[in-house]
């Protein structure tokens, strides 16, 4: 009995030790890396994308490059479909993901143009699991308006970082999209094909603005 208890204690001690030795080091790497990633992305975005002088087509092109390079577009797209992802054919997935990217690009490109003169301040970073961290930040606005709280959920494989979700003042982009798209799919009898049709119409309308 005593022996067994000792064994359990020793075992859990060893586990704790192992966690204690490895976890903080990798967690620090993860947090530091995520934070540096968000900071440099914000700097790039504010410097290159917030210029209003460029033509819209050119801004869309630049924004698309930045977006696909730094956002886990397909993972987000898959999350947004939720339970309907399984029920979607490969062809539908391809078209859906490409339309999803389009929708994100054309609906956010004009918003970025308004961010000129703002600066991002990281307040803290928290590791969520071994390859995900949340970077908490405040975007300070010119003219003394109240700063906007923005949390960035960042995923990494250790070398490359990508954004999984943006949470503005407590509202998650991915979760809002999931509700929005889910409602359209339900309206179309649970068929993703119906969503694809509406996405086509929406992105065409937004592109031609």
């Amino acid at each position, binding site marked *: 009995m005593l022996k067994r208890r000792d064994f359990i204690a020793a075992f859990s001690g060893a586990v704790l030790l192992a966690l204690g030795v490895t976890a903080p080091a990798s967690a620090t790497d993860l947090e530091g890396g995520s934070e540096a990633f968000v900071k440099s992305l914000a700097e790039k975005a504010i410097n290159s994308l917030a210029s209003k002088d460029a033509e819209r087509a050119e801004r869309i092109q630049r924004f698309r490059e930045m977006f696909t390079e730094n956002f886990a577009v397909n993972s987000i797209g898959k999350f947004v479909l939720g339970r309907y992802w399984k029920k979607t054919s490969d062809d539908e997935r391809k078209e859906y993901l490409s339309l999803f990217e389009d929708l994100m690009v054309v609906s956010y490109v004009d918003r970025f143009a308004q961010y000129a003169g703002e600066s991002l301040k990281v307040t803290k970073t928290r590791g969520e699991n071994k390859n995900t961290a949340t970077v908490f930040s405040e975007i300070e606005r010119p003219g003394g308006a109240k700063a906007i709280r923005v949390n960035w*959920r960042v995923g*990494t494989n250790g070398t490359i970082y990508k954004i999984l979700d943006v949470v503005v003042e407590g509202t998650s982009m991915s979760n809002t999209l999931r509700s929005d798209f889910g409602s359209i799919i339900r309206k179309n009898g649970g068929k993703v094909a119906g969503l694809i049709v509406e996405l086509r119409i929406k992105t065409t309308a937004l592109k031609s603005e």
Partner: protein
Amino acid sequence: MVKIGIMQKRMTPVIRLRAVSFLIALLMVAGCASAPAPSDPEAVAEFLQVNDPMEPTNRAVFSVNRTLDSAILKPTATVYRDFAPEFLRTRISNVLNNLRGPVIFANDLLQGEFARGVVTFLRFMINSTIGLAGINDMATALEIEGHDEDFGQTLAVWGFEEGPFLMLPLFGPSNPRDTVGLVVDFLIDPLNLWASNTEREFVPWARTGVAAVDLRSNNLEVLDDLEKSSLDFYAAIRSLYRQRRQDAISNGQGSATFPAPSIGQIQDNPVLEETDELSRR
């Protein structure tokens, strides 16, 4: 005449409560979304998660609200934002915020947030006096930052569930908990009590109207953008309302706890070639 006056005085809040509860009852019976067949557990789970059994009615109310918004509120807010000087608009915002002080203070205390209550109290005292009836937000200048609270949040802190989603006429997205909160905050507000006791019924009306224009003028672009980029504006609003309330209830500490996308293939896929997911399933 005097008698009627007294009657009115005493009855007003009760009548208002009755009107609100009648309205809610009316909406409840008017239209219900059909629940999915119990043989599809995923659909049932989704139905419960969406938690909007009165969706058809809610959508009808939403469309009336949007018509009223585009006919009255939005144009007014746009003119206000574009033509009233920023100096004036900031001060009007300050006065409205300051007037909410007592209600925020009461809710701080009801939630057991005494430190925050002290902050609200100090802000109200400073801004009402040296801030000249709230015109100048001296407290924020002194780095005593304000926050918001309401009775809907207090009920949440006390453990009440939000209940099904509710689209209120004029007031917009809500739920039974926040609707009760709205009514209670109205009834305990000192300015409204004073107005009601002195038969100045126009005071709360005017205040609500100005607050609506102020709020709308601060959200012109946000709502336009959301309407433009969402496929189902109603569903997007419903989701955003719930998330905002969740955030408000936790005083901004609860975010980053909801479900989020994950990078599934990251370990065996060093370059994050996510299109891989297509072939992998």
